[in-house]
């Protein structure tokens, strides 16, 4: 998970308002929005407060907890990032997939979500959307992760309730399920 370091200036639609606001297009979970936001607002604020997209959570607003993790393509190929670290203007013209985009067919749970429930990886659940997002990305790139690989992929996500044991078990279970389903 990382912040986008270089805000792009090449995206169309950035109308500067007199009050320091910008207007730009943003696609969230498949829906195109036109957003007007203060340029220094975070993508997390845009999602939660401007668009009412509440799946990404605010744990720290400083890039330390991963509760706000989303998958986003901001012109750089797409990866998991902390929405709280992305300035809104940087997200202009981008595509964001939140936890709402993760799921099986017909509203069913994805294998990762299912495994989180089965293994008891959810307690208070405030970290869960971030973990499911990061774990989903991991298994798409590495279907058979070792424990160190799971740790390396998830160490940007904090959980204060579970002690992580059930989360690791859930990722391993989801990986097994997926390998079984595709072999």
């Amino acid at each position, binding site marked *: 998970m990382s912040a986008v370091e270089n805000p792009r200036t090449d995206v169309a639609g950035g109308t500067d308002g007199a009050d320091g606001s910008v207007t730009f297009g943003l696609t969230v979970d498949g829906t195109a929005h036109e957003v007007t936001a203060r340029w220094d607002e975070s993508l997390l604020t845009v999602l939660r407060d401007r668009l009412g997209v509440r799946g990404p*959570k605010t744990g720290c607003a400083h890039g330390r907890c991963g509760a706000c993790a989303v998958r986003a393509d901001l012109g750089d190929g797409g990866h998991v990032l902390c929405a709280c670290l992305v300035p809104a203007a940087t997200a202009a013209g981008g595509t964001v997939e939140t936890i709402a985009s993760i799921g099986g067919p017909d509203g069913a749970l994805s294998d990762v979500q299912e495994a989180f429930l089965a293994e008891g990886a959810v307690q208070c659940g405030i970290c869960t959307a971030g973990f499911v997002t990061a774990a989903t990305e991991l298994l798409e790139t590495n279907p058979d992760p070792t424990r160190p690989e799971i740790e390396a992929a998830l*160490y940007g996500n*904090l959980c204060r309730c579970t002690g992580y044991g059930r989360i690791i078990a859930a990722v391993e279970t989801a990986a097994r399920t997926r390998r079984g389903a595709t072999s």
Partner: protein
Amino acid sequence: MRGAKVATSAPGGIGASVRRPDGPAKVRGEFSYAGDLTAEGMLIGVTLRSPHPHARILSVDTTAARAMDGVHAVLTVDDVPGDRHFGLVLRDEPVLADGVVRYAGEPVAVVAAVDAATARRAARAVEVVYEVLPALTDPQLALTAASVHPDGNVYRHVSYSCGDPDARGVVTVENTYRIGMQDPAFLAPEAGLARPTPDGGVAIEVATQWLHSDQKQIGWATGLPPEKVHVSLAGVGGAFGGREDVTLQTHACLLALATGRPVKIEYTREESFLAHRQRHPGTIWLRHSADADGRIVSVEGRVLLDGGAYASTSPVVITNTVTLLQGPYRVDNGRFEGWSVRTNNPSCGAMRGFGVPQAAFAHEAQLDALAAALDLDPVEIRLTNALQRGDVATFGQRFDAPTPVREVIEGLRAVPLPTGPAKAPGGVGRSAEGGTVRRGVGWAVSIKNLAFSEGHVDESTAEVSLRDGHATVHTACAEVGQGFVTVAEQVARTVLGATTVDVVQPDTLVASAGSTSASRQTMASGTAVHRACLAVRDRMLGRVARAHGLDAATLTVADGVVCAAGRPLGPVATAAPGQTFRATEHFQHPATHPLGSPEGGMYVAFGFSAQRAVVDVDVELGLVSVVQIASCQDVGTVVNPTQLLGQIEGGIVQGMGLALMEEVVVADGLITNPDLQDYLIPTIVDAPEIVSTYVTDPEPGMPHGWKGVGEPPLVTAVPVVAAAVRAATGLPLPAVPIKPEHIALGIGAAPTVTWTTPRPADPDRPRGPVVDEEPHDAPGTMAEEGAPPGP
């Protein structure tokens, strides 16, 4: 060790790894937390906080702030219509600063405005003139310094003895131990939404641990009677004690009443550190005397806890620490004393373990020091001294329920040590690879009191209804992540044979369930639900008996089926079509009594836990990797294996955090690390492998023999990690968190070992406890009794 299997009486009943009913919404990101709350016409509330740990307020001018566009209210203490003070135990804390601020971060004014940016601007526009006063930041000085509050600087002084404290064996070991300030660091910062109600009252949805306590304290400040203060639980993102005190609840309600609009307050992470209560940092001096075979002859202990600016639960926490200094060991002779004091540091209160992790860290270090002095095995010395059922505590209470201390130690001993390579210390970067890494193995055992203590009423009420196999369960028990919702559902399935269960969101329309703390809600609210379910079941069976002309006494419910004399009669779901059966039942534990009362016990129940930690330490860099923690815990019965494991693992990792990395650093009264960048909680890389086993000896008087399980894993994890690091490094390490420099530079004094002439206990001394009102000595003399000062 007894088996951990419990017969499951219905699908999804007690003993099964039932999934959380709120789980699907949580994995979809659809579960609504307090921070997600929103309402039509909602204003945003922001708090102006003191930058000074101690100052007189000469003036507060809100004129400019009130005049700003979009600002609907700016409130100071003069706008509090009711009582200006609140607090969980003593009412010593102002709702908004009243002439003086006593900690950095104390709320001075609150603002409601159309959006957060406007509210923040307005808060900055409030002009406060402070006269900065010297901050009292040393808890030792607090005892003799001028009072920083009209109620004085001592929250509580506790002192008692039992038997002959001067009895001696062949050796004494003594040392001074220090425990740092830990933040609960629940992951969802405080949030709530208040709105005025048509009857002139106020309603608040808030992430809290204790709805009725909030209701009472909001009532004090607003001047409203309880029936006009409606509290309901919003989705809670962790708590761990940090939501037991009121923070934003009263402010949001005052703003809603002042503006006539819904008002939401959501803290930032930094505010969260400033606003909620921390775990008490403390200094503990202990002296143990033992025979040559390691049997404890006497224990003397003194505790000083820094309670910070306002009382919160400091008067209660100190008694936990002092009375449980004996650990899970038989101690016939002792002298114990402690103070919790007021300073201008951040206020401390409840955090998972409630004073006992501090005690456990100290007594377990002492047991290892005794074992080392006497050349005994650390496990053997613990077995030698293990409490047994029938023993009497130093504080006079007889352990008359199962007391499986030996059993948890033996159970743990059966778990094999990890083999094979482990990850190197140093995080994902694995910065420590190579020859300076040493392995250490440590042991620790703990005792934790379960439920409220010393006369604080421990009760809950449940309303249950059943119609066509669908049960509804309503309590005021706050679900904070621990999984009470699952337990309530399991009880309804087991007792009622319900096919579906709806656990209603808690509110103050039902009687108090007390706090979700003290490992108590399965015992209190679980038992209330159990009783209400039994009453509903009996009503339903009575109806079935009349309809079938049967004797109700022959009817039972098993696996969702009504049976007559054991023969299936038909499913519960169709037993009485269209009929609704209801019951409301109350549960209260037998009364407890203050320390020293002739009436009897201070505590409701106890839980015991043993752990073994294996660590790898880079002794040059001071980095620690916790490879494995094995646990054996006294759990009464296993209600839900998966959720139980979650409590054990989560608690252990929090305790490991206190042992190795978590510390709220306070310099001159200011928190220097109020964010998750500098306040480190364990990540997935830090978390060890955890092996969890159980002793299931049912708790008398509890349905299925269940008992609280949430705190003991944390309590034991603190000393066990420290013990393993000591074993790896050979260093005394008398302070937690153990920082890299403590290891790399060898900071911290070793226990003082003194060989003594045995002196048997004077048989004429009373068994005790004998409670003294007067302090024996100032706690500042701890070091003079032989223990060199710690780091």
